[in-house]
């Protein structure tokens, strides 16, 4: 069917519009090319919007949340242990101090024993007697 005939048949009026020459000849090939491109884009878009993608994002968030919780729990657990240690130490100190008499402390301070000092020979004798390696002490300090 001729294009011009169709125009006249459709319009039944004078058609003032023209079409570029050969426009309809390659229309189908251009259209199918565009459809192919659309399908390719759709495949790409489909992946990003697919349930697999959503599931992987949800799983990542869940793993991240779980890791964060574990790290938080671990850090708090250490704090709890430290706190309990402190409280035990504090309670021991309190109990020890409760048995210390104030006058006894004054006596100890004012007595001659407070001036007790260690001579160099005493230290050497102590190290020899207790078999302590002086190199080990040097390395440690």
């Amino acid at each position, binding site marked *: 069917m001729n294009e011009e005939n169709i*125009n006249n048949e*459709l*319009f039944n*009026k004078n058609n*003032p519009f*023209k079409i570029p020459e050969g426009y309809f000849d390659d*229309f*189908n090939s251009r*259209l199918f090319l565009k459809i192919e491109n659309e399908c390719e884009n759709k495949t790409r878009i489909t992946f990003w919007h697919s349930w697999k993608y959503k599931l992987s994002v949800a799983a990542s968030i869940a793993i991240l949340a779980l890791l964060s919780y574990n790290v938080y729990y671990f850090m708090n657990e250490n704090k709890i242990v430290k706190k309990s240690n402190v409280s035990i130490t504090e309670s021991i100190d309190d109990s020890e101090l409760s048995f210390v008499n104030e006058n006894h402390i004054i006596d100890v301070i004012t007595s001659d024993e407070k001036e007790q000092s260690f001579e160099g020979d005493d230290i050497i004798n102590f190290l020899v007697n207790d078999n302590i390696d002086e190199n080990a002490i040097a390395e440690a300090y």
Partner: protein
Amino acid sequence: MTERDDKEILKDFENPSLSNSAFNEIVNKYKVKLYWHIRKLLVNHDDTDDVLQNTFIKAWKGLNTFQKESKLYTWLYRIATNECITFLQNKKKKYFVNVDEVNSEFSVQLESDTYFDGDKAQLILQSAIQTLPVKQKLVFNMRYFDEMPYDEMSKILGTSESALKASYHFAVKKIEEYLKHD
């Protein structure tokens, strides 16, 4: 080569090995008719080409869900019409200009358009049509140029026949007013 019946072509489309050739047949059968339906609304050839391609792409995607009870031609016409409306609305949003500016610009553009071969009267008529709201423009074109019956227009546009008659009446009045003042 004689054109096959739409039902036969659609039956072939359901077969994966024949779907491409069946769709090609549909495109061959309706591309010219749809082109002119779109062209009369959009006037510009390049815009028409874009919208016609989009129409067939939508048809390709939706043909599996097409209700066999309705006519394929009516369905394609409806897609093309909706695509035109969307295109015009987007254009209106993109180039936010008032109606008078659009009309004066349109006349100049149409005169210099290499694919417009009309005389002075046709240029004025096309300019007058451009002043109509989209729905009235559609109804006017389908009735005046295509001489489409109101019942068929009703199926395509999803509007009652009485409403379409009223739209056409208003469109004609507006065009007459435009021609008087020009």
